[in-house]
């Protein structure tokens, strides 16, 4: 994990007539967090989605560990988790069941590991309730447990602190610190800077 590196060269992307990404360049190494900042509509979400391949790039290349991600798309995806605005949870299943399927896609999990992860993100108490009865902040805590269970070197987070209370904000910082200390790479689109150890954080302003 420690040698991980994500590099993007000259990324261009249009949305209809609008040129959203204009030659974005970035390099993030293991142990670093890149914060994407910029006004609404500056292209933070678009950049995250383009990096993981959900949005089609008109031009430019993305390298994971110096290998073009298009050469081994599934291998690259197996190394990342993308967490968007809305946690990808089914309202009719409980938090634990959701994780059994969502994170179970990647790794064989036991009920114990799932509950351990839910406990770590403060979601242990409501893990067995249907997600539809949970608040937005509680759902996000369940989704964060999915992030832990995936155990991948690359995290792509879109507004990770949305809907979280102050202890949730601290939780994000703690999780990120642990991830970075273990040599992981993280990119987060943020409005408010995350309280992560400053030496590990770099910033890319897309409005500039």
């Amino acid at each position: 994990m420690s040698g991980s590196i994500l590099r993007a060269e000259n990324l261009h992307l249009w949305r209809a007539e609008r040129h959203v990404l204009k030659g974005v360049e970035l390099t993030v190494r293991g142990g670093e967090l890149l914060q994407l900042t910029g006004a609404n509509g500056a292209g933070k979400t678009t950049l995250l989605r383009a990096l993981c391949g959900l949005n089609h790039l008109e031009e430019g290349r993305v390298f994971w560990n110096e290998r073009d991600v298009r050469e081994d798309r599934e291998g690259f995806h197996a190394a990342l988790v993308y967490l968007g605005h809305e946690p990808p949870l089914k309202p009719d299943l409980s938090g634990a069941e959701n994780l059994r399927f969502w994170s179970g896609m990647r790794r064989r999990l036991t009920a114990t590991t799932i509950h351990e992860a839910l406990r770590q993100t403060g979601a242990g108490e409501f893990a067995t309730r249907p997600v539809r009865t949970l608040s937005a902040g509680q759902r996000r805590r369940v989704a964060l447990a999915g992030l832990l269970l995936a155990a991948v070197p690359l995290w792509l987070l879109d507004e990770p602190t949305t809907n979280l209370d102050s202890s949730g904000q601290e939780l994000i910082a703690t999780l990120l610190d642990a991830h970075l200390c273990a040599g992981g790479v993280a990119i987060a689109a943020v409005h408010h800077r995350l309280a992560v150890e400053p030496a590990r954080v770099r910033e890319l302003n897309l409005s500039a």
Partner: protein
Amino acid sequence: MSPAAPSLTSPLLAARLVITRDLMLAFRRREQLLHPLAFFVLVTAMFPLSVSAERSVLRTLAPGVLWVAALLAALLALDFLFRDDAQDGTLEQYALSGQSLTWLLLGKTGAHWLLTGVPLSVMAPLMGYTLGVPASASVGIMLTVALGSLALSFIGSIGAALTLGARRGGVLLAILILPLAAPILIFGSRATELAIRGEVYVAPMELLGAIVVLSFTLAPLAAAAAVRISLE
């Protein structure tokens, strides 16, 4: 740092997880399961009321009635195939799971067939009975509807994936899929007709089987490509 075990999920296990999940969801929220079935029962029950209560007339009409009603009921259910998962971001996570999207969609389509095609094929002989079809044809009707709905689920998965971006996808889906379903209808109703008459219905069944094999091999690939486009 993380409590996860290191062993990775195989593609087959991932597809099985998708099936388990979809079955679990369907039994938590049963309308998805019951609506197509209720639609099928009502449509077939309309015919004796509107055409004629004469048993010999109904028996002649039975294959066509059963098949058109089953086709429309299955089509009704196809609209739900990917829509919920697209809305709550599950499809996105499938595409990013590091697993082959083709396998996962194969699982989803299989689950869809278990939830709509199998109940329909159990219900079809019962509704056939109300149309004057002899009980001896039950097994034949069940088999043909099961095979036909399986082919329709696969072919329909392409349409369901293609219409994900459309706001009112349901009608568009029907327009896209019904012409492609014509061979299923032709061979399916032919086999049913032969079964009702008590004759050998192997030939049209083999052709239905061939359609299943063809759609099984090609449709998940096409559906996966269409889903990727819809995620943009």
